[in-house]
Structures are given as structure tokens and as C-alpha cells.
């Protein structure tokens, strides 16, 4: 939040701020004195820099003197030198290279801290970081915390479109369907992966396999069987194996690489084989060529998975997973700690396929009809995380919501849901929000930076809040590190918040991994927890007299949400994730 504030302030001073961010800044400035102080200091700094840049072009500062960058000419700033080049090119390149190393490290840290699977498997990234010099900027100030890049970067060459029955090597938690693949090694023991390169080529790879993704246009195969489909737009896509290059001319070919042999066969069209010691040769439909080894060691390609096979196998596997999950739900709902278990699917309640039931999110706890969630507004039924045969609810349109009511008093909370996020459009994006946000009531949401936020109202008396605003109320937001960015669209996430007053801890999880763990300070301790009327995917009753941030509908889908009157432990959360994860995770 603090970082966002600074970003938005400087963007404002720079006039590059978006309307939404500017409004957000105004709300902060209006309600938060600390934000005002930061803003005023930033304006002052900006003004100071403006003035210095104009007043003292190239004037050496004390620390510029001996030792510091002896060779560099002072930057000619401003238009004094007849409008010639303003910045000495090489000096700047050095600066930028230096600082980019810093940005790179932070970026690396972020992506590897967060359980987002985006940049996994990148060998080169690790190497780059290991050899990067320590950045100057981070050591300049005692505070030292180098929060840097504000942009969301997606780096990679391909996406893992489909993954079926894949077994990843031990100690590697693997990739998910939809993950972006960066350069580096991809290795798996068995199963089938369908990889879409950004140039348009597709590889269907059968394990055991090991390949190195080199660029949008090339990959090297060390082990495995694959089928490459290269549409005309991707002509020139190159697969390397056994010291040779297979350059595709817009076609389909198969390749098998074992430790002793490598064989390529053109299934349709034409490829060119290049290697250093022999002249290039053309290979046409039906022709086969051994890059290494001989006919005796190569196998038949007829059983190689096709696109249709992948599709069929995936469909079957998905049906199996859906069946497993429904069985699991039947067991889960016997758990006495469950307060509610909302599912978009009407498990075991097919009898009521009336129009009415289409407007329900089914509560699997307690007697049917009791405490079901009611779909309000433009909530749409869409495919759930197990594909077309399962159901989810889409909250992307403003006003979409599922209203629930849960009476009673509780000693702890565990919230768990499966959600797919298409964008973090709002300052706060709702998962589950109690109507009035009154004493002991929970708010569970995601902020614009992709962090999970969980909070329970401590004192809802207006004016008790931090910052002194007359409407501010006293509570604390427990935040995780960011787990979502634009590359995670189309992926389902298992999100969990555990609020544990007896042990004074708030622990949050994404896909079974801890992403946030914070002690509940005495002043924020709340013993009696309640829910009352609440909404899934939106916020029905914002604070009175405070219209800000009232639009909180989740731009995305939720297909299951469970609430426990207990603090589940890490093993239980991991098990919920493992049992409930969709195909390809």
C-alpha cells in the first residue's frame, strides 16, 4: 500500500497517473494524514529536483569530486549548450545497467517469493542473479528496502497449454496449465505436455522429457518424444537435437531423442536438417532421418500423441478429477467445524433443477434450502475449474453478487475458496465481505497489487480508526505478498485465510503454500467473531456516509467457498488444495 501510494504520487506529479489511481490518491489524501505528509514531501522533492536541474546544470556536487567517476563529464542538463545532446550517452548506459541489475533482483525476488508459477524453471535467471553486482542504490540509504519496478512484466517464450498426468521431478512443485514458460530447462518424468510457443508453433511432448526453451522460435531437446506442429506463421521454428537443427518449413514432424539415438520423421510437409559437418538436407512427408544412432534403435512414431489424443485424454482425466472432487465434497461436508460450504454445482441435489435453483449457490452444510447463497444481479453461471462439466460463478459485472446469511458466534475462522481472476480492476476486489463490516465481522479481498487482504473489524465506532478521519474505524488489514499478476489470468487459485484468535495468528495461503503470516497484536485482538449477512464476490453494504471503494465486485470466478469455525493447520490446507486442485496442477 505504501509503495503504491508513492508510485501514484509520483505518477501524478509526472502526469502519467490513471484516472482511477488519481481518484484513489484523492481518497487517501482526504482520509489519511500520513499519506498527506508523504505527498507533501514528494511534491517538495520533485520541486527541488526541478529547480536543481535548471539552476545548476553540470555543477559538480561535493560527492562528485575526486574519486567518483573521474572520467565522466558532468551531465549537460537543460538547453544551455545550444540544444545539443543532453545526456552523455555512455554515462547513462552505465547508470541504467547498474540499476537494472537492481530492478532485476527485486523482480526475481518477487516472482520467486510469490507462489505464482510464472517464472519457474528458468535456469538463466538464477545465474544472472548470482553474478549480479550488489546495486548501489540499495546501499545508499540505511532504510535499504529496494522496492522498485511498478510495472508488471511477463517474460517468457511459450505457455504450457495443457498438462496431462505429468509427474514432475522430485523437489519441483511443477507448473500449471496456462503458465508462461521462460527460457531454461523443462523436465518431467512422465505424462504429456502441450507447449505453445509465442511464434505459433506447438510441441506435444511425452515424458520422460528434458528440453531447453531457448526463445520464442527455438528449443533444444535432450530427451523425449514429441510432435511439432508448425503453422505457416511460425515457419523457421527450430528444434535442436544431437548437434543438429531441424528447421521447419511450415509443417508437422515427430522427433524422438534417447541417450543413444535421435530420429526425426516428417509427418506432413517439409523440414530442413542442418548440422555443422554435413550439408543441409531436405526431408519430405514420410521421410525419416537419424541424427544420431541407427534404425535399430529408433521406435515407431505411430503411437505418438496427437492433438486429438491430448484433447481426449484430457477430457477423460478431467471427468475423473471431477468425480473425485464430488466424492471428496461428500466427505468434507461431514466436518463438524464447517460453518458453510458453498458450491456452484448442485451436488446430490439434481432434483431441484428448477429455474430457482439456477439462482442459488448451494450450501452443502445443513439441511437443503437452508442458508443457500442467492445469486443477485448479473452473476453468470460459467464453467468451473474442472471444465465444462463443472460450474462456477462469474462476478465480473458490477453489481454481481451472491448474498448469504450466517448467524451465530464463532471462535476462529478459516476461509477457503477456489477463484479465477481475470483482472484486479478495483482498489479492493471482493472474495467474501460481511455487509456492514461491524465488530467481529470479516472482510476477505484482494488488493490491486495482487495481495490477499484479510481483516476483522475491531471497533466500528466512527473516529476510532488510525489516521484520525471522523469516519475511520479501528481494524487491521492482514496482507500477504503479491500472488497474482496479469500472467495468471485463466488460472484457478486455491486461496485460504486462517484467523486464529486463540493463538493470535493470521495465516494466509495460496495453493497450499503460506504467503502471509502475522501475529495479531493485542490492540487488534477480537474474540467474538460473527458473519451475519455477507456477500461472495462483492460488497453489499459499504460503510455509511462513505461511498469510496464501494465497487468491489471480483472480476473473475469463484466455484467453491468454505468457511470453518476453526483454524485449520498447514497440513489440512495442503490437503484441501491437493484434493481440490483441477487437472494440470
Amino acid at each position, binding site marked *: 500500500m505504501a509503495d503504491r501510494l508513492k508510485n501514484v504520487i509520483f505518477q501524478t506529479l509526472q502526469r502519467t497517473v490513471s484516472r482511477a489511481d488519481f481518484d484513489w490518491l484523492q481518497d487517501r489524501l482526504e482520509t489519511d494524514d500520513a499519506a498527506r505528509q508523504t505527498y507533501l514531501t514528494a511534491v517538495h522533492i520533485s520541486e527541488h529536483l526541478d529547480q536543481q536541474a535548471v539552476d545548476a546544470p553540470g555543477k559538480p556536487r561535493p560527492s562528485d569530486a575526486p574519486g567518483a567517476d573521474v572520467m565522466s563529464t558532468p551531465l549537460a542538463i537543460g538547453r544551455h549548450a545550444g540544444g545539443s545532446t543532453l545526456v552523455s550517452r555512455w554515462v547513462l548506459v552505465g547508470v541504467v545497467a547498474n540499476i537494472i541489475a537492481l530492478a532485476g533482483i527485486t523482480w526475481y525476488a518477487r516472482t520467486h517469493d510469490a507462489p505464482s508459477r510464472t517464472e519457474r524453471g528458468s535456469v538463466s535467471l538464477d545465474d544472472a542473479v548470482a553474478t549480479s553486482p550488489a546495486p548501489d542504490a540499495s546501499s*545508499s540509504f540505511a532504510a535499504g528496502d529496494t522496492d522498485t519496478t511498478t510495472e508488471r512484466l511477463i517474460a517468457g517464450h511459450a505457455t504450457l497449454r495443457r498438462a496431462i498426468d505429468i509427474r514432475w521431478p522430485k523437489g519441483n512443485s511443477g507448473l500449471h496449465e496456462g503458465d508462461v514458460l521462460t527460457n531454461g530447462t523443462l523436465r518431467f518424468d512422465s505424462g504429456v505436455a502441450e507447449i505453445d510457443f509465442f511464434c505459433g508453433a506447438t510441441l506435444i511432448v511425452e515424458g520422460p522429457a528434458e528440453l531447453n526453451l531457448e526463445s520464442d522460435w527455438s528449443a533444444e531437446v535432450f530427451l523425449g518424444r514429441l510432435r511439432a506442429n508448425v503453422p505457416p506463421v511460425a515457419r523457421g521454428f527450430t528444434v535442436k537435437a544431437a548437434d543438429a537443427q531441424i528447421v521447419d518449413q511450415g509443417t508437422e514432424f515427430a522427433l524422438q531423442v534417447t541417450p543413444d539415438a535421435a530420429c526425426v520423421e516428417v509427418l506432413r510437409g517439409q523440414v530442413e536438417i542442418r548440422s555443422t559437418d554435413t550439408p543441409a538436407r531436405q526431408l519430405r512427408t514420410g521421410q525419416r532421418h537419424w541424427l544420431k544412432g541407427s534404425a535399430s534403435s529408433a521406435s515407431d512414431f505411430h503411437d505418438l500423441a496427437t492433438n486429438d489424443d491430448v484433447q481426449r485424454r484430457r477430457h477423460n482425466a478431467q471427468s475423473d478429477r471431477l468425480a473425485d472432487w464430488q466424492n471428496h465434497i461428500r466427505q468434507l461436508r461431514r466436518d463438524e467445524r464447517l460453518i458453510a460450504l458453498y458450491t456452484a454445482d448442485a451436488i446430490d441435489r439434481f432434483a431441484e433443477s428448477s429455474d430457482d435453483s439456477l439462482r442459488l449457490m448451494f450450501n452443502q452444510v445443513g439441511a437443503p434450502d437452508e442458508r443457500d447463497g442467492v445469486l443477485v444481479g448479473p452473476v453468470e453461471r460459467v464453467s468451473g475449474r474442472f471444465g465444462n462439466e463443472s460450474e462456477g460463478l462469474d462476478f465480473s459485472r458490477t453489481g454481481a453478487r451472491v448474498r448469504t446469511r450466517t448467524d451465530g458466534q464463532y471462535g476462529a475462522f478459516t476461509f477457503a475458496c477456489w477463484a479465477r481472476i481475470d483482472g484486479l480492476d478495483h482498489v479492493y476486489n471482493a472474495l467474501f465481505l460481511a455487509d456492514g463490516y461491524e465488530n467481529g465481522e470479516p472482510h476477505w479481498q484482494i488488493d490491486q497489487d495482487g495481495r490477499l487482504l484479510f481483516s476483522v473489524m475491531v471497533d466500528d465506532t466512527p473516529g476510532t480508526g488510525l489516521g484520525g478521519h471522523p469516519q475511520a474505524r479501528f481494524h487491521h488489514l492482514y496482507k500477504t505478498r503479491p500472488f497474482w499478476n496479469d500472467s495468471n489470468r485463466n488460472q484457478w487459485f486455491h486461496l485460504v485465510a486462517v484467523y486464529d484468535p486463540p493463538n493470535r495468528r493470521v495465516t494466509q495461503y495460496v495453493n497450499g503454500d503460506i504467503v502471509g503470516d502475522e501475529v495479531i497484536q493485542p490492540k487488534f485482538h477480537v474474540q467474538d467473531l460473527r458473519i451475519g449477512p455477507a456477500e461472495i464476490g462483492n460488497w453489499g453494504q459499504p460503510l455509511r456516509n462513505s461511498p469510496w471503494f464501494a465497487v468491489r465486485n471480483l472480476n473473475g470466478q469463484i466455484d467453491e467457498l468454505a468457511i470453518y469455525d476453526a483454524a485449520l493447520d498447514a497440513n489440512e490446507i495442503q490437503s484441501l488444495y491437493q484434493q481440490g486442485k483441477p487437472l494440470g496442477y
Partner: protein
Amino acid sequence: MNSRPDAPPDDVPPDDPLDDRYADFVGLLARHDQAVRRFVRALLPTGDGVDDVMQETALECWRKYDRFCDTATEVDGEFTRWACVIARYKTLSWQRDRARDRLVFRESVIEQLAASAELRLDRGDQEREAIERCLDQLPADQRRLLLSVHSPGESVARIASETGQRARKLYSVVQSLRKLLLRCVESRLASESSHG
């Protein structure tokens, strides 16, 4: 009003240029111009309108100068605060005229900011010193980069194209330096205020 102390505001009624009162007023303006300008600048996020508001403020101050002198017990010491109250209303009316523009704070925000800024009026020098100290702590090359994008007519995009860097990357580098600087200044000010 003009920010240069040696250039009397064009629109100020000339009266008699030799009038002592007028000379006093110009002197006061010259001494306190920076503080008032900084105050106004803080209320106008993009900096647009600062000159307009300053000019309006100066005119208004001149119109009410007699009354101010009558009530003030210590003219020089109270001038900034008094001028800032006027500047605040001038900013609000400027804002009302331009409320539909993209980057103009709404009235309630200006009110809150003005209140906070008034409390900081006396800390201008302290803050300036903190900024300078923190800038000095930056390695020379980073300071140059930071300053270069603040030069008139200069932009990140232009520097990026001149050096072959991607503008977005360069922008985020500059942004991170600014935040670093901001954090340094904030912690310096915080430690100063906590030590009295």
C-alpha cells in the same frame, strides 16, 4: 505575481511607486514568495495554475494589505501564514473553474492538504536540507539520471531513445530512485522531529 523578487508584479496597482507601504509589500513578497509558492504547488498536483494562483494571491494580498498591517502584531513573521490563507482560497476558486480537468484535486482534498501544509510551513528549510543530504548520498550517476529527467523539456522517453533503453524500464528505474529518495527524506525528517 512573479517568482523573481526583483520584478514587481505587473498587475499590482502602481499607486505611487515610491510609496513606502508598497515598497514594504514588495519586500515581504520577495522574502516569502518561495514558501507561499511551495504551499500552492502542493495543492495543484501537476503544477498547472501555480503562476495564475500566485498572481491572484499577490493581487489579493495587496488589496488587503492595509487591513493585514492593522491587525498583525508582527508583520514579517505572520505574512506567510496570512498569504497562504489567501492562496488557499485562490487555489480553490481556480480549482472550481477547472474541476472538469483531469488532474485537479477536488475541494475536500485541497482543504485537507492545505491544513496539513500549513502545519509544515515552518519546516521548509529543514526539509530542503534533508532533501539535499539525501541527494548527496546517492551515487553521482544515479543523481544525474534523476536530475536529467527533471530538466525542462526533457523526458524519460527522450532519454530512453537517446540511450537505446526501453522507456518503461528507464521509467521504473527513475521511479525507484524517487521512492528511495522519498524514503530517505521521510526518515530523516522523522528522526529530526522525534529528536525535537
